């Protein structure tokens, strides 16, 4: 299988605290790969390193064979990595449709002059943007909400809108940071279906999730972090039986 993302001993330190220590793994094209671990394990920090928000202290990240250390976040998005946020970060005062349209920014190129002149190419591009954004809203099931302000959407809808917005950047790798947080069982099921649908489009998914039902239900492989250290890697079954993982989550059995 082709390796899409390779993490080579990534370390990220905040002052004296090592949020990530020597984390290495490979992510194959087309799989759903989950990162799990207790709170503060460094999962989101890893996402921030991948998407260029923090440069790793040491180690390298390779995306499609290219070293992406130190590349600005917007250029990383252009390379094909998109993400959602654990604490929803939509553009609150834009409509749902506009949010998704913003996601297409890096795949389109009308500048100020074309905006002012409104030549044919720009008008065509705008309507392509709107159409694509609309079909993405449909894809995540928000077709009725196109004109709603993002901040007025229900919580679950906001999560799905974030996914649609990330998909608008036409990613090869989609990083989902706790997409199921705060969802009820029915919404969780819908989310699992949505993630499977995204995978079916050939998009590789890197998932951080606390809902074990989601993780175990859809992941092809899982890596477990604890205090910034990788403690296990494998398929769902391996992880469930792994002694270290059980200890990290439940504590050590005293005998």
């Amino acid at each position, binding site marked *: 299988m082709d390796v899409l993302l390779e993490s080579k001993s990534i370390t990220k330190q905040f002052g004296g605290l090592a949020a990530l220590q020597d984390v290495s793994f490979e992510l194959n094209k087309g799989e759903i790969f989950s990162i799990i671990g207790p709170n503060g394990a460094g999962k989101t920090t890893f996402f921030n390193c991948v*998407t*260029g*928000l923090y440069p790793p202290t040491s180690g390298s990240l390779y995306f499609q064979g290219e070293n992406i250390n130190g590349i*600005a*976040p*917007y250029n990383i*998005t*252009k390379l094909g990595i*998109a*993400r959602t*946020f654990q604490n929803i*970060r*939509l*553009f*609150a*005062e*834009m*409509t749902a*449709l*506009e949010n998704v*349209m*913003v*996601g297409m*920014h*890096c*795949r*389109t190129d*009308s*500048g*100020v002059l*074309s*905006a*002012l002149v*409104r030549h044919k190419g*720009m*008008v065509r*591009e*705008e*309507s392509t*943007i*709107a*159409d694509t*954004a*609309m079909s993405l809203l449909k894809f995540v099931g928000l077709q009725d909400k*196109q*004109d709603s*302000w993002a*901040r*007025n959407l229900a919580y679950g809808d906001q999560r799905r809108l974030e996914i649609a*917005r*990330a998909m*608008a*950047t036409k990613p090869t790798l989609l990083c989902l940071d706790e997409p199921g947080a705060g969802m009820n069982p029915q919404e969780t099921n819908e989310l699992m279906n949505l993630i499977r649908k995204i995978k079916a489009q050939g998009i590789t998914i890197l998932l951080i999730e606390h809902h074990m039902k989601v993780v175990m239900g859809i992941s092809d492989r899982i890596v477990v972090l604890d205090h910034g250290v990788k403690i296990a890697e494998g398929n769902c079954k391996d992880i469930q039986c792994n002694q270290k993982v059980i200890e990290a989550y439940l504590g050590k059995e005293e005998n």
Partner: protein
Amino acid sequence: MKLSFSKVPMYALWFTVLTFPLVGIRMMDDKTVQFRLSPLIIGGVVLFIGALYMGLSRVKFTFISDAFKGIAAPLKPVTAGLAKPPAIKIELFLLCLFLLILPAMLSGKYMNLAIDTGIYIVLALGLNIVVGLAGLLVLGYAGFFAIGAYAYALASLNFGCPFWLGLLIGGAVSAVFGFLVGLPSLRLRGDYLAIVTLGFGELIRYIFKNLPNITGGEKGLPNELIRGEIHHPTIGPWVLSQPIYYYYLTFIFVVVTVVVLERLNNSRIGRALIAVREDELAARTMGINATKMKILAFVLSAAWAGFAGVLYAAKIGYITPEGFRFEQSALILAMVILGGMGSTLGVILGAVILYIIPWIIRDQLPAFQDYRLLIYGATMVLMMLFRPQGLISSKRRKIELTETEEK
């Protein structure tokens, strides 16, 4: 914000007490002090009634925004998904018609007032790009205005540069300065950016003031050393030196500015700017180069001030550094905020009100001259209390203010 009625008399009393030294005491020419209570009481009562009215009726000026809603209709997004198809409303047509035949009814000083108001509308709209759209607080906008005016004045006096070329030069020079100031200062946020731009505005004025050989120093341009005339615009053999030409020129200028702003607002770049304003980090991870966008807004905004400066210099024919003080920056910003940040129509209304009302007081009611700034300040306070989103709020700003209150 909801006004609790028990506080209304308190506001009135508070206002009266606070303004007593300004309104109630008057130094006469013969150095005697006169205490005058009547304006103070009138002020307090007016404020009381006004506050009570606005609080009670909950009208809160919506009749104004309703009346003007129609005018905002054209120049909508090109995509059908976002809004109803553009329809040029009758109100807009009538307004334009009225403005086109207005010069026939205006004489000397009123014509001048109309032109100056137009220039300030252009300035306020230009500032709106950076304040309303990109959400960056700029306090030294008069600096860019000055750069445009001086660039054209110098080019015209030294090299005989014609107006239309000067317009490009003024805009370009101002844009370059916008870029140079923006590059380092856009790393800063909010208040810090405001302070840097405030410093810039003052710096520019002092530079012009202290280069007597080049800019004429305090004497301004043209002066006895740098003689000549700042050229009026020309079309072929016609020299457009009469106020009426300036009136139509300014009118076209305002229309072009409005079109530019609306088109920018409803474009890929406009969306990116709003996204950066809303959440810079999320915008960056969505593939938007936030720094580039902010600099773009800054440069565009500066260029617009430059254009307005050229127009102003040509119209007035004589410029001094004192024409570009911090008061001007503050006034333009006040126009944007009072009118409604991000709302083109609101900003125009804000500019009209804030330029014309002080003028009327100066010209028609000299007795109130002393209270001009006081009225101005009180208006601002009242606006922020009762209608923080401005006279005509942009649809986005409205969401922000109403929603956060409910939470």
